[in-house]
């Protein structure tokens, strides 16, 4: 059963050198309280896997500003110029991955698959160094799964066991990342008793979740 912990306790679990998936799309659906607390711990040398790096100073951008990230796997960094600047300076290495390929690599990581074949990226720089496989006349790239030590995700509501419901477009990468990391920490707006969430409405079943943090009240 997932354990309810303080944001401080949760952030302290992440050690320097870890790989960390972080949910969200341009800060929408990013566990901002967890990220803020993670910056405070002074952790460094992180590999971050996320759709983007938010904007300068907000969302995952806080980790970029703090120089906590040495390697980034993302689909887009254009909304946070600081990431691009640090990439040019050489303090952060960035692997850009098409968004659909990124989320599917994470899904494969969680689903026990050894990879998948996608037409996305054929004939582009994304294809460089990758195995090409042609089936029925269509050429695909072999893309490999992604896993991480930690996933930091954001949900709307959890019950005390860790069953999760996401809200609106804040769902994005969160339920996929919940399947692909060794330790999954969720930041939620509300924690309810077991049984209060209709099993038909559960989007991430509880066993994927290791720790629950209530956002907002215990921020900062």
């Amino acid at each position, binding site marked *: 059963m997932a354990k309810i912990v303080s944001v401080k306790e949760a952030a302290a679990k992440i050690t320097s050198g870890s790989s960390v998936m972080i949910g969200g799309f341009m800060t929408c659906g990013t566990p901002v309280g967890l990220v803020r607390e993670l910056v405070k711990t002074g952790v460094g040398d992180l590999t971050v896997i996320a759709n983007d790096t938010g904007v300068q100073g907000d969302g995952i951008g806080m980790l970029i500003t703090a120089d906590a990230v040495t390697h980034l796997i993302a689909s887009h960094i254009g909304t946070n110029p600081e990431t691009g600047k640090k990439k040019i300076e050489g303090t952060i290495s960035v692997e850009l991955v*098409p*968004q*659909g390929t990124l989320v599917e690599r994470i899904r494969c990581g969680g689903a026990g698959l050894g990879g998948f074949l996608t037409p996305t990226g054929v004939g582009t720089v994304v294809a460089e160094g990758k195995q090409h496989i042609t089936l029925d006349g269509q050429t695909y790239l072999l893309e490999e799964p992604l896993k991480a030590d930690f996933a930091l995700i954001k949900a709307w509501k959890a019950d005390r066991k860790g069953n999760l419901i996401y809200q*609106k477009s804040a769902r994005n990468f969160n339920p996929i990342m919940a399947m692909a990391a060794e330790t999954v920490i969720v930041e939620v707006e509300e924690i309810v008793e077991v049984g209060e969430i209709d099993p038909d409405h559960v989007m991430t079943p509880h066993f994927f979740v290791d720790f629950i943090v209530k956002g907002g009240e215990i921020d900062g």
Partner: protein
Amino acid sequence: MADRDRRNLIAYRIAQELKDGDVVNLGIGLPTLVCAFIPPGIDITLQSENGFIGLGPPPAKGEEDPEIVNAGGQPVTILPGGAFFDSAESFAIIRGGHVDVTVLGALEVDAYGNLASWMVPGKMVPGMGGAMDLVVGAKKVIVATLHTTRTGESKLRRECQLPLTAANQVDLVVTDMGVFQVNNGSMILLEKNPEFSVEQIRAATEAPLEISTQLKDMEIPA
């Protein structure tokens, strides 16, 4: 023609390509303008690749919901009948051929249907986001772009020089000079902005140009 009118001309023309029932993904910027010109009686469903269908107009000031944003991270609304989903499902929709039309901008587009829209080496490397999946997965790919760069160079190239978003995927290119069908090594001018002569368009187009025998004038939006 003022810059605004040129953009509206492109968006208006692309809107005429959409059919009732189409699922459509519009890129950020010029492509977004297409929404304003959807003909009456045509019901289309807009997809937002961050995870929903039923994308609606921007909310009134003060009514923004931070949990409803478009693929540019800007506040938007969701229309009745819309649906949210996660990013894996969103890109299954895109790659799986369930999006009928995608409209994207371009840095360069060429006579082989290659599109370059995501980076300028050494200058601008924002990342491809969802564009590579969209261009490969959508049934029809329409490029919406001004015909030339600010310095007057043709964006309709013989062959793209910049890193590609996808190879051989573009079907139709709509610019402020005309409507062009990609034809494996050439572009066929189907319609032209009546302000320009065919010779002016040819002079502004690096891609080998063919002229449709049914060439007609683009309709100018009111």
